[in-house]
């Protein structure tokens, strides 16, 4: 079984300060981390590999200026990682990357399972997994908490309202994970050093492909175009509720309902 894990990186939000009044974003510490939801996908892939035996191949969800997250994935337990190079886009562009990743999956000789994050920490995009599922004609399980693959099927726990249900899809399939679903194991330090040095058994595990070798030049045209930036308005604080206890409670309940996460 071959499992493809699609991983992305994100600027650590703890390193940035947004000043809406000045209309500026200050990057105090430029540190990139693995997308939290993609971390869960990688952990799920490694658990399936341990339980059922599989080859885990890591692919990037954007064009990356460096291979750090792919090296991390190899150090954590992935068997292969493929960096796909091209000019980075202004914003993560899942429509464009779906085309490139499809070609990369085809060059790899296909897969049985594609795992990735259900949402990104920065832009909140969750379209890459379903786009790949659609292009490949595969079923999708979106927002999984855990997954196991046996006997030609993948079973996953998915949230259904306030409860959780087991769902099952035939392989091949795409499964996307919610952030925080699984705790990613730590990388093997010696393996990580060897991967950076390019020595040892993992020396050839990181490959570099050019996007222009995978798809036609017109397929590398971005789908999304960045047209500007905006900042939230100043908050109107201190709005006082008046009326009877019941009226206040109703108004407070309505305000809470509209602001609760889905």
């Amino acid at each position, binding site marked *: 079984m071959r499992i493809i894990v699609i991983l992305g990186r994100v600027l650590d*939000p703890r390193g*940035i300060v*947004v000043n809406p009044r000045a209309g500026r974003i200050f990057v105090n510490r430029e540190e990139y981390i693995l997308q939290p939801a993609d971390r869960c996908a990688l952990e799920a892939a490694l658990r399936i590999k341990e339980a059922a035996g599989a080859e885990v191949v890591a692919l990037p969800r954007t064009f990356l200026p460096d291979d750090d997250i792919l090296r991390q994935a190899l150090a954590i337990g992935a068997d292969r990682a493929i960096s796909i190079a091209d000019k980075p886009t202004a*914003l993560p562009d*899942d*429509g464009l990357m*779906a085309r490139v990743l499809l070609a990369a999956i085809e060059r790899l000789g296909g897969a049985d399972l594609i795992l990735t994050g259900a949402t990104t920490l920065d*832009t*909140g995009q*969750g*379209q*890459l*997994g*379903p*786009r790949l*599922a*659609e*292009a490949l004609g595969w*079923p*999708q399980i979106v927002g999984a*908490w*855990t997954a196991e693959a046996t006997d030609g099927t993948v*079973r996953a*726990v998915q949230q259904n309202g306030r409860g*959780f*249900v*087991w*769902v*099952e*899809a035939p392989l091949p399939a795409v499964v996307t994970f919610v952030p*925080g679903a699984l*705790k990613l194991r730590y990388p093997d330090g010696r393996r990580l050093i060897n991967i950076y040095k390019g020595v040892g058994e993992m020396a050839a595990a990181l490959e570099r492909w050019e996007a222009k070798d995978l798809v036609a030049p017109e397929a590398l*045209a971005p*789908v*999304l*175009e*960045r047209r*500007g*930036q*905006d*900042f*939230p308005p100043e*908050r*109107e*604080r*201190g709005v*006082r*509720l008046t009326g009877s*206890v*019941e009226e*206040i*409670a109703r108004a*407070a*309940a309505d*305000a809470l*309902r509209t*602001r*609760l*996460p*889905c």
Partner: protein
Amino acid sequence: MDASFLDLLMAQQEEVTEAEGGGGIWVVADVVDGAIAPVTLEAIGAARNLASALGAYVYAVLLGDGISDLAATLYQAGADGVRVADHPALASFAVEPYLEVLVNLFQAEGPEVILFGATPQGQELAPRVAQRLGGGLIEHATTMTLDEATRTVQAAVPIYGGQYFEIVACPQARPQVLTVEPGAFPAPFMDPYRKGEPKHIEVTPVEPRVRVLGPAGGFTPPSVPLAQAPVIVAAGRQAGDFGLVERLAVALGGRVAGDRGARDAGWIGPEQIVDVRGVTVAPQVYVAVGIRGDTFHNAAIENSRFILAIHPDPTAPIFRVADLCVEADPKEILPALLHALGA
């Protein structure tokens, strides 16, 4: 002129008409508990604004089982045309049956813009529709404007949960597919006189490939650290009955926390203290019950998206950082609030 005659006159005038020749802005409706979801009505309102600038018509698509009557709500919200796919095979949401109906419809109608709610259903369908039709997809739109020269929709999408917004567009890809963030657009005026005749879509049942096996008994999701919890209900010295605070947390699906006063009262553990010396939080909803709000506490919650404060003292510093202030004794307000939340 008496009201009944006015009603009759309005009813005659407000029969809506549809355009010939496809195009238009299409909204795929979400149905929750047998009613149209608020996000769908908000999307129709946003679509109407775009339609005025585009010179286009607004259509809504309704899928489900026994849902035909809901078409009237979509007309009242501003739809010029409604397509209804009412079939037992669509009783509960599954990707393949819903996708089949939508793709066949959109391939025939050639929409210019398609809007989904940014709900679990919309998040699953929108990328697949965009991929199948060769369209571009913008997720979590919170504002939409039109570049009239190219008939391109420009949308603001929240970055890092809304700390700032990027304005993006799909200038080359058609159709332009967007998911609309719930609560981002105002609910439209519901015109009770506006009505139309929905068109029913022929549904060919498609077997879903993802099967629901049953409840995941025994599965408990890993606990999220308090600092990352999306909803927090925090108690202070003036909270009164801590049991009510816990019930409110359950009703909102949130975590219980508190200030140092709650810790001194023995209600919470040290790891639940919200304070710059304890845990700094940034939830989507923070409810402060009976917390006076000292400098250390208020600094620890300043990045919360929405703060509701309940405290009997109108001069309590918590009211300077709260979005919504309730000057009352929590012991009186909490039972009524729980009742209003249906808990």
